Structures are given as C-alpha cells and as structure tokens.
C-alpha cells in the first residue's frame, strides 16, 4: 500500500505539513478560514519532531500489524480491508487511549477538545495527502515501498 515515507535528511522543519494538515481537516479547506475564521480550529495529525538541526514529520504509519487496532477496545480503529489504511471512527471512539499506549510512533494524537483521539487519515483518497503535496522539500513521499520502482528500491546513498 502507499504510505507516507519520511526523509528526515531533507526535512526543513517548516511545519507546513502541520499547517496543511489542519487545513485538510478543517471544514472549509481554506487556509485562512481554517486558521482565522472557523470556530473550532482543526488539529494537525502530523507531528514535526524537532531538535535542531534534526527535524522530521511523523504521523500514523498505517502499520501492517497495527498495535492500535489490536488494542482498541471499542473497534473505533480498524484496518480498512480494501486499502490497508488504519481508519479511526471518531463516533465509536471513547477516548480510552489504549491506542496512545501502544502506538510505537506516538502517531495517535489526543484530541483534548473531544476527549478522543485523532490520527492521520491519509486525507481520505486524495492522490497525495496534503502534508505530502505541500511539503516544500520532498521530505514526505507518498509511495508504496514494496512496489517495484518504489522509493525503497534504490536507497540513494
């Protein structure tokens, strides 16, 4: 499946991924409205890990063996059989945070407002998630690493 792969060596720590993630999950999908006019500001589902000079964005890895799904007590987290994505059903989520406990990437984010969690949804069917398409430096790649010609085929050393 296509995943968001990260290239920390070219992540510049601009946080545009976070910003556009907010836009992607806003109501209007308009950056100015999302930040300045929407009543409830959406939250980013990507975290920029930052300890200068090292920076890189990290979000749900959509694991093939998703610990979060296994740990979810409500069935709110599940793997979409067709796409392999890890989907979070906010309606079902009770905010037990078992997923927070087990996610090895810290990729599940506590939504303090709703006392639930939120996570990367790969922008639900966009050809490229916002964080990838808006990354100014190619530090995020949306690709199937297992596929032939995928980015992992030829590590660029």
């Amino acid at each position, binding site marked *: 499946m296509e995943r968001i792969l990260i290239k920390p060596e070219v992540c510049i720590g601009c946080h545009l991924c976070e910003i556009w993630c907010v836009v992607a999950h806003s109501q209007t999908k308009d950056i100015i409205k999302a930040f300045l006019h929407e009543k409830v500001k959406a939250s980013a589902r990507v*975290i920029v890990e930052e300890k200068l000079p090292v920076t890189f964005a990290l979000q749900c890895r959509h694991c093939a063996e998703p610990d979060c799904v296994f*740990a979810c007590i*409500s*069935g709110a987290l599940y793997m979409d059989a067709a796409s392999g994505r890890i989907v979070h059903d906010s309606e079902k989520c009770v905010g037990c945070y078992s997923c927070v406990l087990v996610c090895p990437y810290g990729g599940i984010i506590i939504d303090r407002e709703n006392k639930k969690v939120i996570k990367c949804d790969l922008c639900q069917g966009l050809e490229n998630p916002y964080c990838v398409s808006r990354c100014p430096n190619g530090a995020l790649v949306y690709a199937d690493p297992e596929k032939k010609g995928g980015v992992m085929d030829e590590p660029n050393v």
Partner: protein
Amino acid sequence: MNPTFDYAVIGNSAGSMGCIEMLRSLDGRGSIALISEEARHVYSRALLPYYLVGKIDLEKMYYRPPDFYEQNRVTAILGQKAVQIDPDKKEALLANQERIAYGKLLLATGGQPLIPPINGLDKKKIFTFLNMNDVLEIEKALVNSRRVVVLGGGVIGLMAAEALSKRGLKVYVIELAGRVLAPVVDEAVSQLLEALFRENGVEIITKNTIAEINGGSSVTGVVLTDGTEIPCDMLVLAMGVAPRVELASQAGLKIDRGILVNGRMETSQADIYACGDCAQVYDTVAGVSKVIPLWPNAYLGGRIAGSNMAGGGRESGWTTNMNSMHFFDLYLITAGLNVSTDESVGLVNLVRLVKEQKYYRKFILREGRIVGLILAGKISRAGIFVNLMRSRADVSPFTGDLFNEDFGYWSIPEKLRWELLKEHIILGVVDGNDRT
C-alpha cells in the same frame, strides 16, 4: 452427523475476534464456528463503564459491525454454553447437547468475577461488573438508588465507582489493601487517585472490607470489618476476575492459574489453543508466567492462535502488563514492572512528580533499559516509551529527556532514533557522513 468446522472458537470477545480476523486473513475458505454463552453480538466488555456513565449508547458497544459474522463467514452459535470438550474426538459438547466437531479449537473463555465469601450476597441490588447483563441490571437499579458501595479498589472498581458517581450516586469504595489500584500503580499514584476520587465526592476506604451485608431482600448497607456501617442501596462487587478454566480443566489441559500456553498459544493438548483472560502467558518483562487480563493482550493472543491454527508460525514476542486508564480528568498509563521498586535486584527508579499539575512519571530501569513505567497526567505519545521498552533500548544517555512533556522521537539520540524508525523512513539521500 454432527456439524464439523475447521476451526472453532469458544468465547465472543477480543481473543475470539483476534483469532477470527487472523484466520480469515490466512485462510479464506476454512469453516469457523463461534460458540458463546451470551446471546449477543460481539461487544466490548471494556466499554461497560463508558456505557454506564452514558458516554456511549448500546449500539456503540458492539465491537464489530453487525454483519461481522456474515462477512467473515463465521457460524455464530450464540447463547449456547460449551460444557465439555473431548480432545480425542475433537468435539465440543454444547449445553443443548449438540456436538461440534472441530479441526482446531480456541478457548477464549475469559474470566469470571471474584466473589468474596460474605453472607447475604443473595440480596437484590448486589451486582458484579463484568458483562453486559451486569451493567443493564445496574442501570435498572440506578433509578431508586442514592448510595452505592463498590467493593474493590482495582481498575474495575474504580471505573465503576467513577461511572456511578457521575450518575449522581454517593459512592463508597472499599479496598482491602492499604491503597487503591495497589497491584497496578505505586503509592504515589494511589495517593493521587485517592485524592482525586475524594475531590469528586467518592469515599475511599482502605485496609477494610465488608464483614456483613445488611438488608432484607435488598441490600440496605454494609458493615465493614472495623465495624463501620455504611448505609447503601446498591452494592457492586468489583474485586477482579479469575480465569474461567472449568472447560479446560475438564478436558485435561494443564492449568496453573490459567490455562498454560506456549508462545504459539498452544495448550498442552494438540489442536487446542487458548488466549485472553483464561490463559496464562509468559510476561517477558517480569520474567514470569501469569495471567494478563487485558484487552489488547487477549486480541493479540487470538491473532497468534489464529495464525498457528491456520498453519502459520507466529509466536508471541514481547508481552507484558500494559494499561491505559482514566479516572475523572486524570489519565494514567502503566506498563511492565510498574510496582516493583526493589533496587536490590538492579532496578533503578526515576521519578518526577508535580502534584499541582497532577503530573507524574516513573521509569523503572534495569541496566539502562526501561522495564516499567507509569505516566500520569501527560500521556501523549506514551507508545514511544513502550516502544523503547519493547526494543530494549538503552535510555541511559537521555534519561533526563524522558520527563519532557513533549517527549518524542526528537528526544532520542540520532542513531537509536533511526533504528526505531527505520522501517518508515528513507535515510541516505544525503550520505550520513556520520561521525561514528
């Protein structure tokens, strides 16, 4: 001819779901039977307190969509208790005398509530807190209740207490040990919790238990061993669960506290597997074999069993106690040896407490590696700590950073960080040129 299934699972909760979903991912064809004494679609027992407190409705209790059995082509035999297993014939006998022949069998029978030896338990408005029926009964009884005693200050007891308190009842929690949640958290957290419950109007009574139950047909109060009398119109028994092993025992499976299984979830009998609250597994962190009655553990055990039942070769890897809890506004996460503080066996405790912020962190280290942790208050990205634990990473170079509220992969030294993340990142566009 008795119905014959390639796979049979007894139980209808996390373990069974893990098993069935794994089976179906490996074997699309094999027939599967699911036997459950409860006549309900699979639901999450862990959600009972959420239901009770009113956060979710009944619909949301269901763990999988309504068509789950059909979608997975599972023959669900619900409301039928399995009463006997014949491992030689590979048959399960149901309460209705039907025999189900199986190729491989999973016992996911779960646990049963511990009931204290007290007189008067037959009165009305005395409940356990384990399954849907319990909760539905409690809910019915709530209407006429104002005061409730919860016996047991463990996880279930406290969750029940919080839920009942939020439903407007005056709640008393009676705990035999010196503090609440004693087997799960350390003294400091117990104190935090007790204070928290008290702030929210819940009485916590420790070092005590019920000696007598007052009342006629219904409970009207309890008398504690120290003589204190607490009037109440409801009593919830929440002292914990014990593995349900009678089926296994009858079938001649080896049992200690739970059904003994190996890393492949195989019992002592061929083609019979067990997982979840009824099974006894190896805690790789504590280094002992024990029952770990936790939802994720059951589900994962089911997956491993399912894999092996379908001819795969999975073994359980890193396994230990892990818990995510919240009481009122306090979030708690524990993992591993969270209570052991015995420094004489080479354990080092790193602790930081900020009482006013209800912030607490404790890391128990052995040879620089995390073997246990408790986080209270700030639990964001706790999984990273667990990942450090799981990967047996040496954290001694950055122990100070562990207490950072925003702890993340950035806090981890570069080399270790990329080791932990390597599956999902691409390194090497620019040659590392690293200093090593």
